[in-house]
């Protein structure tokens, strides 16, 4: 913990997570990544929603917005449109991103905004004290589902790829070196990138111990991340370990394309096309003088 507190990206506010929480690793991986990239804290913005994961920007001294439950992506889009020179990281969780904020996730991914989303997936609601989340396994017992979760988990990786995200990677909070590599790669990517981080909850989750052994890196398995079929095949395996105790959990870059339209670039094109069309409001008003035929509909 001491290394995160001394880091020049930390604001001195001590994180409000439970001792030993996997999120500390994500926080330190992120700030170390900033440090290695030499980012000025005034030139990056971290935006979050609500939940344990979303407390993250409150510990940083970068630009930070702790917004509403499920709504970090709309705010991130507004800040990207307003200040395209300032990169945006969204720190969110499985409840924030995939339950209440699912519509925003699908559309931000589809539009391929140049935003890096780090989803701290603990597969449950921790801040409200243990309820099932969209990614909880079948049968998971939360306080609102005492007889077990009645539905299958949402596959974040598949959803991101099919929504149109141009980069989707997976990592685990227990492998900091790999996590740093993934965050760095996602920040390098122009377009919507998701880092889906397996980050178990120490207080309510009881299924984290086996995880590290089961991880396998797709990059060591000759995975073709720019091929849609390979990517979807790898994505389909992420919850295999829920039902099969011998199955592994894929991490690494699942999907990445550099040839997809990025919204930010498209906006630039529209602005360039329109540059100088009108020099003042009076130019527009001239079009609305009687007899000029500027018409409705």
């Amino acid at each position, binding site marked *: 913990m001491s290394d995160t507190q001394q880091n020049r990206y930390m604001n001195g506010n001590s994180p409000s997570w439970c001792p030993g929480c996997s999120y500390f690793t994500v926080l330190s991986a992120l700030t170390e990544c900033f440090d290695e990239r030499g980012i000025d804290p005034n030139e990056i913005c971290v935006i979050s929603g609500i939940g344990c994961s979303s407390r993250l*920007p409150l510990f940083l001294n970068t630009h930070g917005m702790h917004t509403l439950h499920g709504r970090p992506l*709309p705010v991130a889009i507004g800040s990207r449109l307003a*200040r395209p020179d300032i990169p945006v990281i969204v720190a969110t969780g499985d409840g924030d991103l995939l339950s209440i904020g699912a519509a925003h996730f699908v559309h931000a991914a589809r539009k391929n905004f140049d935003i890096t989303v780090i989803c701290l997936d603990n597969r449950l609601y921790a801040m409200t004290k243990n309820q099932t989340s969209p990614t909880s396994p079948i049968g998971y017992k939360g306080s609102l589902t005492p007889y077990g979760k009645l539905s299958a988990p949402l596959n974040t990786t598949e959803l991101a790829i099919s929504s149109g995200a141009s980069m989707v990677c997976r990592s685990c909070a227990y492998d900091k070196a790999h996590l740093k590599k993934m965050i760095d790669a996602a920040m390098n990517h122009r377009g919507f990138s998701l880092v889906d981080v397996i980050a178990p909850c120490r207080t309510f989750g009881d299924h984290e111990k086996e995880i590290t052994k089961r991880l396998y890196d797709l990059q060591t398995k000759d995975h073709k991340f720019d091929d849609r079929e390979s990517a979807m095949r790898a994505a389909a395996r992420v919850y295999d370990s829920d039902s099969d105790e011998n199955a592994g959990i894929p991490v690494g870059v699942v999907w990445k394309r550099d040839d997809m339209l990025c919204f930010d670039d498209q906006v630039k094109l529209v602005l360039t096309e329109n540059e100088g*069309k009108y020099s003042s409001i009076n130019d527009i008003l001239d079009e609305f*003088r009687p007899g000029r035929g500027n018409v409705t509909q």
Partner: protein
Amino acid sequence: MDATNNDAPFTLRVLIVGEAGDGVLSAGDTFMRTAAASGFHSSVHNCFPPTIRGGICSVLVTVSDDDSAAPLSTSADFVFALSRASLVVLGGTDCAGGVDRVNDAINRGTDISAINTGGDGSDDTQSFKLDFGLCPHINTHPQLKSSFVIGVLSAILGIPENLALGMITEKLKSKNLTAQNEESFKTGFGSASSDILPALRAANRHALRLASGRPVSEDQVILDGNRAIALGAISAGCRIYASYPISPATPIGTFMATYLPAFGGFAYQAEDEISAIGAVAGAWFFDIPAMTATSGPGLSLMQEFLGYCSMTETPAVIVDVQRAGPSTGMPTKHSQDDLMAVIFGGHGEGQRIVLAASTIDECFHLTIEAFYMARHFRCPVILLTDGALGNLQMSCKRPDPSFNINGYHITQPQNEDAAVSTATPQTAPTHIEARRVTGLEHDPKGMPNDTSNNRVRQQYKRFSKMDKIDGNCSYLQTLDIGDLKPPLPKSRFSARLQESLPKADLCVISWGFDAAMTRVAVSEMRKRGIKIACLYPRLLFPFVNGHYMELLNFCPRIAVVESNYTGQLAALIRMNTEINPISVKKYNGEPFTPEEIEAELCGIINMEKFISDMSETNNDGAAKT
């Protein structure tokens, strides 16, 4: 020709009613533009269903040489019914003036008619059948009826053929059917030029005034409420606009999407209204002026972010083009039923500023004001308009893009939360010191803090900054006392003198589009010697108590005119003052016409007189015995 007196004030109204798909809105738009191009003050009020096909549409076009002519009226000089169904609908209303003639036409089994109501109280009404059969294309393309009607109107009113035809082709330049429209226009023109024409012309003393035309004034533009807001926003430096399609606010976005990129900004179509206002908050975080516009259900979805902006002291400009609710309600119909929702909607207590525009000019200038206030007071500013004003298209004085009433934008931020510099979007990046905001209760540096002391200090800070709004600024309300004497300064001699001054018969308060119609009604009543004091507030919240109390100097009877069921402004006045106003309400989806307001207000005055006469009689009786 002798029926035309070129010195008399001239106002001509044409009502066109038809089924959706008949080109009714198109006809209204084209006729209004034609009249404006002839140098007349013109307006068109639209009424249409929320569907693309089906239902009845109507347009009321007003043409006048008087720029204060109301765009709404209970009567019209000419009525065109483009189908049997629309004629029947007309017969059931009193919105046409020549009701008898309409009913005649229905009884005679006529399906489509043009009716000269005689205008201005003349009994000499006529009607004739619109013979769409003369133009075979109309069978397959009912929207061609609009050109036919413009043809008939041009013939009756003596509008130069090429002027009206030019307007039609200009409107259609990007679409097909140009040749068919021209043919339809000419057929309509020809059909009216035959035997019916001389009688129609002679009967309407205004008809030929349009033929001669007037010079088009240099400072005139044709705008509607929605476009005026979009123009105001760009003038105020708005660079990010985010919205989701919703009637009747969508045209603001259409305009922004077209013009904003030329100014280095962008109009973003979000996946829902929550996302739209979220993007607005994200842009303002970096001090880039941003706006969203919505209506009804969209406003409901935005409530949580309105609270967020209040809590984080993030500016936001939200335009609510009100429509009749609750729920989906009547999406294209007029209403003023969101006042309480924009002031109090959402959980918790957050400070907001609520403005309401009543004219196209105010739509433009109050939007600029909204941006200044948002940036200065660092809270959401909601500008209310309504469907009638948003869609009302009229020729008006060119607005002033450099308008700034209070110079709010040049003052320093008021607190640490607000400490950001200004920046220009999409251009050279400006350095901004990194800062954090959170919707949690927080200390002045933006760090979560829910201790009691901090809560009290922060809540007080967020609310007390609103005291600095200059409520007396004349642009934020109009107190119109006509020829009544203003109250005397308080002194020991003035009380009796004040007593001896003539009192008003009634005080009237109105807001939004209804305020514009109330002005017209009041000016008619004053012409008849009725004394009225009026207050038209444009800053509706924070509530400026003093303005309302001032009315009590003129008369204790205060009426509030507004388009909703519960009398929302009246309720707000009861909450904040000792005034117990009389509510004058309408909630059928159509705005008040000046005639209706006049009748309501006269009714109140007469009833009050009746009651006071009765009590005087009783008192006299008691004294004698």
